[in-house]
């Protein structure tokens, strides 16, 4: 019971540990989500930056391709221009050829430094490709509206004497489009700049080509000029309208944007996180050589992590669902467990109380063994092996006026009612036997008391005995109990009148019986918990197994232990269903008289039968080997005398030997019908005499006298009767 309880307790988690479990689970889930998120974010970011770098590289290569072509177109025409400087009219052909031979070039001019030519104060023939028709038209930029000497593409190379990529500009009255111009000075023979040769490229191709770079749906590319002018941007209205610096000023994260600008405008490459309009954007940028442009890819962070966020969300939802399920299952399980445990504890408490009640009752009956250590005439032992469920077995005994009062009983049914009736029965036994010595009268008055108050129709099988320890007389009365076993020479059932159990009919007449117990007889009383003990195949222990277990001489306590052992071997693992109660009473009082008889013929060879006869007696009274050997010797000497002297040779006769054992003395009577012969009349020999004085005979009767305590001869009715006695106690 107690064991079970502990096992159950192990199952139920306390509220605190359950809470802890949930918290740990939740924490683990959150931690996994975070780690997973961080790692996937890192991976994605890394991948994005690799992709951006790649895109930037290839875009830059393409741009460089165009730039190189444009520069080559101009550079290759420089020497022709130098050659034609003398004749300005011939210069016209140069831009035309630049445009026609280079598909990337949309317009070209060769603008003379004002005043270089006497003929033309301003001279700038301009070849322009019509984007629709592809026809090359010749225009002149030397108009008042255009004022080419003030244009950047003209002034910068003129000042520096170096080639120059212009800032993007809308070429009004010229190409009439958004363009950038590569200009290179044309030097005369003196090394002075005489004219500027240019090639225009439209920003349209750049826009188109940049627009194709889409590493993510909402990512976009930007090209910024060296002054921060936005050259290409998906938002058309911003192109050429704002510089990135203006953006930075408007932006919420000016610092970061400034950084980008500085980095971009100083021609570096790299990657930065920029916050714009409350949104994080990853900006990857790289410079385009020579032109001073910066190419950049802007990637909104939201876009970048859209995928990972979606998956993360899904995983989180699944994890939370799982956690919720665990909690729900845990709750259901523990709720059942708690309910079960409450019921269990309740049951256990009741059982415990019953057990306590029963222990109190049992404590009232004698439980110390041996109960009467000072008594030599009684060896008594009793035991109750209680079943798991409370039963109603009882035994009791006490000695009053040299009489042993004892009883054994079994209350019908189990549980509290049975155990209460058992307590009542025991009290009644004590009360009734306090002044009464007749078992029948004790049982009768007990029956009346129980019957009167027996509303639950419970009954008690009961056996009550009163043993007179002086005489060995046993008076007993059986009230429906199974008959006890009596152990004499054999083991048999005590003959009992069954009567009815206690508590069935009041005023019932109970029959009393009696038997005389001899020294060494024993009684074994038990309840049906022993005879009906079942093994796992529902076989009962039964009376024959009880009898077998009772064989052999043992103390009462050892008899009970032996039976308990036999039962437990038999029952093995089958649960004990009923109380098992036993009472063993070994009577060692009165006169333990036993007699043994042997008849021998007057043949000296018959002496050989003596050892077995003596052995039987010796075993019964537990003689030691030496005493037994001496007894044998004394008997042999006495009987040899009879055979040798009472029956002369040739005559027939018998020797009757009767041994009596009474617990103290072994007394042997040797009787024969031979001629009168008194062995005791023989003179006692002197055992101190030397060999010369020693007679050959006379040793036999000397030995008999020495060994036995008493030797007596009488001649009676024509018989020689020799009685020899030995005290062995």
């Amino acid at each position, binding site marked *: 019971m107690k064991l079970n309880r502990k096992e159950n307790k192990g199952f139920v988690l306390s509220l605190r540990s359950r809470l802890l479990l949930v918290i740990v689970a939740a924490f683990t889930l959150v931690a996994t989500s975070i780690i997973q998120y961080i790692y996937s974010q890192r991976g994605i970011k890394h991948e994005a930056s690799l992709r951006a770098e790649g895109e930037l590289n290839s875009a830059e290569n393409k741009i460089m391709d165009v730039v190189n072509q444009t520069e080559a177109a101009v550079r290759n025409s420089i020497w022709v221009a130098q050659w034609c400087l003398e004749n300005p009219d011939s210069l016209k052909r140069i831009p035309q050829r630049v445009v026609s031979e280079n598909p990337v070039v949309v317009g070209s001019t060769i603008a003379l430094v004002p005043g270089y030519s006497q003929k033309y104060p301003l001279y700038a023939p301009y070849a322009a490709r019509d984007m629709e028709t592809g026809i090359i038209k010749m225009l002149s930029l030397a108009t008042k509206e255009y004022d080419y000497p003030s244009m950047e593409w003209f002034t910068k190379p003129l000042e520096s004497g170096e080639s120059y990529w212009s800032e993007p500009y809308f070429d009004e009255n010229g190409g009439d489009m958004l363009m950038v111009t590569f200009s290179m000075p044309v030097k005369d023979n003196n090394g002075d700049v005489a004219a500027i040769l240019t090639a225009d490229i439209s920003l349209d191709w750049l826009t188109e080509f940049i627009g194709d770079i889409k590493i993510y749906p909402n990512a976009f590319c930007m090209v910024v000029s060296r002054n921060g002018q936005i050259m290409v941007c998906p938002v058309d209205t911003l192109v050429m309208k704002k510089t990135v610096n203006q953006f930075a000023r408007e932006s919420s994260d000016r610092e970061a944007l400034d950084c980008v600008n500085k980095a971009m405008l100083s021609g570096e490459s790299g990657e930065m996180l920029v916050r714009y309009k409350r949104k994080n954007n990853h900006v990857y940028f790289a410079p385009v050589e020579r032109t001073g442009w910066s190419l950049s890819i802007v990637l909104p962070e939201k876009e970048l992590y859209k995928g990972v966020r979606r998956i993360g969300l899904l995983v989180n939802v699944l994890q939370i669902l799982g956690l919720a399920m665990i909690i729900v299952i845990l709750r259901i399980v523990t709720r059942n467990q708690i309910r079960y445990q409450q019921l269990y504890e309740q049951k256990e408490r009741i059982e415990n109380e019953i057990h306590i009640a029963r222990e109190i009752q049992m404590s009232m009956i004698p439980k110390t063994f041996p109960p009467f250590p000072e008594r030599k005439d009684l060896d008594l032992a009793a035991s109750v092996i209680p079943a798991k469920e409370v039963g109603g077995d009882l035994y009791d005994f006490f000695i009053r006026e040299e009489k042993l009062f004892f009883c054994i009983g079994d209350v019908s049914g189990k549980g509290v009612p049975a155990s209460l009736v058992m307590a009542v029965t025991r009290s009644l036994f004590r009360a009734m036997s306090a002044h009464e010595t007749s078992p029948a009268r004790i049982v009768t008055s007990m029956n009346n008391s129980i019957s009167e108050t027996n509303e639950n129709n419970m009954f008690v099988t009961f056996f009550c005995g009163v043993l007179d320890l002086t005489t060995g007389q046993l008076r007993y009365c059986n009230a429906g109990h199974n008959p006890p076993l009596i152990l004499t020479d054999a083991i048999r059932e005590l003959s009992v009148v069954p009567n009815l159990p206690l508590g069935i009919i009041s005023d019932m007449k109970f029959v009393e019986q009696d038997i005389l117990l001899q020294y060494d007889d024993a009684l074994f009383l038990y309840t049906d918990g022993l005879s009906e003990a079942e093994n796992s195949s529902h076989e009962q222990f039964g009376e024959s197994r009880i009898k077998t277990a009772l064989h052999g001489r043992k103390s009462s306590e050892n008899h009970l232990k032996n039976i308990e052992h036999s039962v437990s071997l038999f029952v093995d693992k089958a649960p004990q269903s009923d109380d098992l109660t036993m009472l063993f009473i070994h009577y060692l009082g009165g006169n333990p008289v036993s007699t043994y008889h042997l008849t021998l013929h007057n043949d000296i060879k018959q002496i050989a039968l003596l050892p077995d006869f003596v052995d039987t007696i010796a075993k019964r009274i537990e003689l030691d080997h030496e005493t037994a*050997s001496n007894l044998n010797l004394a008997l042999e*000497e006495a009987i040899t005398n009879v055979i040798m002297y009472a029956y002369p040779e040739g005559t027939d006769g018998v020797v009757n030997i009767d041994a009596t054992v009474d617990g103290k003395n072994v007394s042997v009577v040797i009787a024969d019908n031979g001629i009168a012969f008194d062995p005791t009349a023989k003179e006692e020999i002197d055992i101190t005499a030397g060999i*010369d004085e020693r007679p050959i005979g006379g040793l036999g009767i000397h030995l008999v006298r020495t060994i036995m305590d008493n030797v007596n001869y009488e001649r009676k009715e024509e018989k020689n009767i020799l009685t020899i006695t030995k005290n062995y106690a």
Partner: protein
Amino acid sequence: MEVNVSRENNEITVQFSGRMDTPGAMDITPQMNALAEEADKTIILDCTDLTYISSSGLRIFVTLRKAADEKGGKIIIRNICNEIRNVFMMTGFLNLFEIQ
């Protein structure tokens, strides 16, 4: 009751085994009487396997002893068990014999 007699030089060893009760003693009496004729020698009575002796057996021992006295021999009793030693004590034989 069994007897085994063996001779070596001037010594005769008699080995008894079993119970020397009255019938047993009667069985071996002729053999022992013959032995008494040689009582001028040393006779060793080996009782190692003798478990019991009664007065008839004791008488054989006394007869041998007397014969040895007459003929100038010697009787030695060897290895007696507790029971027999007890009988020897009760009969004063412990003083009559040389017991090894």
